[in-house]
């Protein structure tokens, strides 16, 4: 949503990826978010993730709702179509878009107001519907565009810049997603690119509903020492339950990965996630265990991050509905219309 066009020149020796594109080919327009906003780091992480895994930008569709978070799709992948819809309703738009064309990558960007308040119902139901997409929430515990009201993800007792204290328990979208059957659930921190980038790549490659809750501080309204969504608290208290490396499908898996990698997870498209031990022997395959760990850390005031839960074998909505392989939006007149002769037969049943 920028007024200023981004300069298009770049260094002639900018490295290219496997499909001959440079990092610049994955950028968006110039950001209009506040300087230091966590959300800009999310854009940067998506750009790096997409470039490194050599995604074709035009095969990605970006969808969002309303709010600071929902501006993010403007700031990455300007060669992709984007749809900034209505507040809290991105999940339904994403569902329809995905039904129309199963062959694109879908990135949904939402915020805590968008997904945990006005759109909580839609959030729950898109998880149930198993849409094959990456759904990211830029979670800052506050309403930025309306100047700093607390949101439903703000922790009890967390304070905003004006000193307003959250009087209610928070809604944790990650645990909710696990309970509702999401097959890929992660949490990360916008300030930890090393963790966030491979999670984005894995989420994009995962078939089914992939959810990443990204703590993304609001520097203007909710970055005090007493805010649980501020930089200080998140730096000090986020703890990775598991570390992830991502090997895209295109790369031959001959790379000997770092020592300490204890588990490989092969995703639907042939990509591989390498899970590393982080000292706590966490296994992200068990819902109960995931919920237990997240809640136990929360009691200590800590934020569990990393890949929290994964089930790489789960089906997506198209499999559930048993749709044809060809995307609906490419089916022709001939393939869809039964014709007059059939209609004559139908007429007979109404006589």
């Amino acid at each position: 949503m920028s007024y200023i066009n981004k300069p298009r020149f770049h260094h002639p020796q900018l490295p290219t990826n496997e499909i001959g594109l440079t990092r610049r080919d994955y950028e968006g327009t110039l950001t209009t978010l506040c300087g230091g906003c966590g959300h800009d780091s999310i854009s940067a992480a998506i750009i790096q993730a997409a470039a490194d895994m050599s995604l074709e930008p035009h095969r990605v569709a970006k969808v969002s709702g309303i709010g600071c978070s929902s501006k993010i799709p403007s700031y990455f992948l300007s060669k992709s179509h984007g749809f900034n819809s209505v507040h809290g309703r991105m999940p339904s738009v994403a569902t329809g878009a995905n039904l129309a064309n199963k062959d694109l990558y879908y990135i949904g960007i939402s915020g805590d107001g968008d997904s945990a308040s006005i759109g909580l119902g839609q959030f729950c139901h898109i998880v149930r519907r198993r849409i094959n997409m990456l759904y990211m929430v830029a979670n800052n515990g506050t309403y930025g565009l309306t100047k700093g009201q607390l949101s439903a993800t703000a922790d009890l007792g967390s304070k905003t810049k004006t000193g307003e204290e959250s009087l209610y328990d928070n809604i944790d979208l990650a645990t909710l997603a696990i309970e509702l059957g999401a097959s890929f659930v992660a949490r990360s921190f916008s300030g930890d690119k090393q963790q966030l980038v491979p999670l984005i790549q894995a989420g994009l490659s995962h078939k089914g509903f992939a959810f990443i809750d990204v703590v993304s501080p609001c520097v203007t309204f909710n970055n005090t020492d007493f805010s649980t969504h501020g930089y200080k608290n998140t730096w000090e208290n986020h703890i990775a339950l598991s570390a992830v490396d991502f090997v895209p499908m295109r790369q031959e898996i001959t790379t000997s990965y770092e020592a300490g990698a204890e588990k490989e997870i092969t995703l639907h498209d042939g990509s591989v996630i390498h899970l590393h031990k982080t000292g706590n022997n966490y296994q992200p395959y068990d819902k109960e265990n995931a919920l237990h760990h997240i809640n136990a850390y929360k009691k200590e005031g800590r934020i569990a991050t990393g890949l929290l839960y994964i089930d790489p074998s789960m089906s997506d909505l198209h499999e559930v509905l048993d749709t044809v392989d060809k995307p609906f939006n490419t089916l022709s007149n001939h393939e869809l219309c039964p014709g007059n002769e059939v209609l004559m037969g139908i007429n007979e049943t109404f006589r």
Partner: protein
Amino acid sequence: MKKMRKGKADSKIAALPKINDFVVKFANINGSGSASANNMFAKAIFRMGIPVSPHNIFPSNIQGLPTWYEVRINEQGYLGRREGVDLMVAMNEQTIARDIDSVLSGGYVLYDSSKALADELRRDDIHYLPIPLKDICLREFDKPSQRQLFKNIVYVGALSAFLNIDFKVLTSLVSDQFRGKEKLILPNIHALELGYQFAKENFECPLKLQLKPSDKTENKILIDGNTAVGLGCVYGGATIASWYPLTPSTSVVDAYGKYSKRLRIDPGTGKKKFSIVQAEDELAAIGIAIGAGWNGARAFTASSGPGVSLMQEFLGLAYFSEVPVVLFNIQRVGPSTGMPTRTQQGDLLSCAYASHGDTKQILLFPATPKECFEFAADAFDLSDRLQTPVIVMSDLELGMNEQICDSLSWDDKREYDRGKVLSAEQLDSIEKFGRYQDSDGDGIPYRTYPGAHPNKGAYFTRGSSHDANAAYTEDGDVYAEVMDRIALKFRTALDFLPTPEIAQKSGNALGLVYLGTTQSAIQEVLDSLTKKGIGMDTLRIKAFPFHDCIKEFIAQHELVYVIDQNRDAQLKSLLKIECNVNEDKMHSILSYNGVLVTAQHIEQAILDSMPKLGKSIKVQA
């Protein structure tokens, strides 16, 4: 509103038999299995070649409340409702007093005489047809469910003797209905015979109400509007139906699913070329359809007043960001929950300008099931061509009642009009793509589907203000340019929308303007007025925004009657706003008691208005 006239006021002792011109009404308890028996009765008459129009008047309830099925039989083809009942099948003790009261003088009441009829229910100007339905069924059937259900079949058998229904037609209907469940055919035919025999042995048959085979239903079908809509969506190429259950729209998606399962299965793989998503609410239902429309698939949702209210914000988004989507509004009685199982044309204003800000929506007004089929398929072409929502405004009367109409047909040469969509090759041949540029001067811009081209054609769809290249803007002049271009697009829309049906004779000073299901009464009104020496031109509106000829029609007449099936004269208001028609040029005829407007009501309103018109208006044809 004027109270509807009760049957007794029209008292006419039927000295001569009424042939192919009477009303039979069934008063039942819902959940008692009467619906299929009553349908069989109506369909038998249809198969005898006689025009028939059944109307369900049913409760918002699953079991136990009163429900009526009113069947008008009319050789001349007057298929609207008519007040007053010639034969009442009174099967509901809760309503029997009221039901008997509505029978015309000289008419008949068929009732279950297993229990004696209370003295206060006796009228001396009508005939009683006592049949011990319960006793017969107890004697003849063992299963408790059959003892209950077959009471309905037995009275249909009796009606066959009373009215001269061809018994062979009834048995063929039973065979058709239970194809695949042959075990059920014989007991049903037995039940029909029991009723037939009892009537023959105990009463003089036929009654003064008689059916005579005719040829008026050749090449016609008997179908409800929602089934026709569902079928139209299959033929129109819809691949995605997203919806939330809501009476009276539910059967639209049921029909789409039923026909898709037959007609949209890929022969090679057995996989589906359609999808149905039952959403969490109507907001999501339309959001899904909009997401699909944006991505180039044809999608629709079906709902009614409460659901359409929830869709308002999304309708504004689709209007402003110019995304195709089709919505079927099967209108019911509002405001709020209103009367969920009764009919109304109450959403005209709220749909014409649905959503906040300067918005306008394309509306289509089908009047028959055949038009439901055609407008459903057309709606997808229109929505793609105009890149905006199209709302098909049906109602409960049309949606949930079977009606006679011409057979459905499809032109096999027809290709879907997908509108202005640029392919990768077309994108290569143009210098610069601008999503909201008016390249053709008709207000309709070009669009691209996501994923179409590696470097060209990507754009950002948004409900916030944007310029011709889809970039965000807060420049008021740029905003106004886009709004003006969309207004131009809506003028272009008139070239594509169905034009009004006009019947005009020179010299007529009076006109009648109406839309949708009101049509069922019009011919009857005109014929009756002609007999009284009153000539009247008619115009049936099929779409909104209005074509210029509507304004011209009103201008050409001294006075135009505008018929609205709502309290607030919503059609008249729309004409005032859109056609700048002077208030005193239009006279409202209103009907909003939840049932289809009758010819008698319309005619009476016209006659009542005559003395007030003054001598300046010549009513003579």
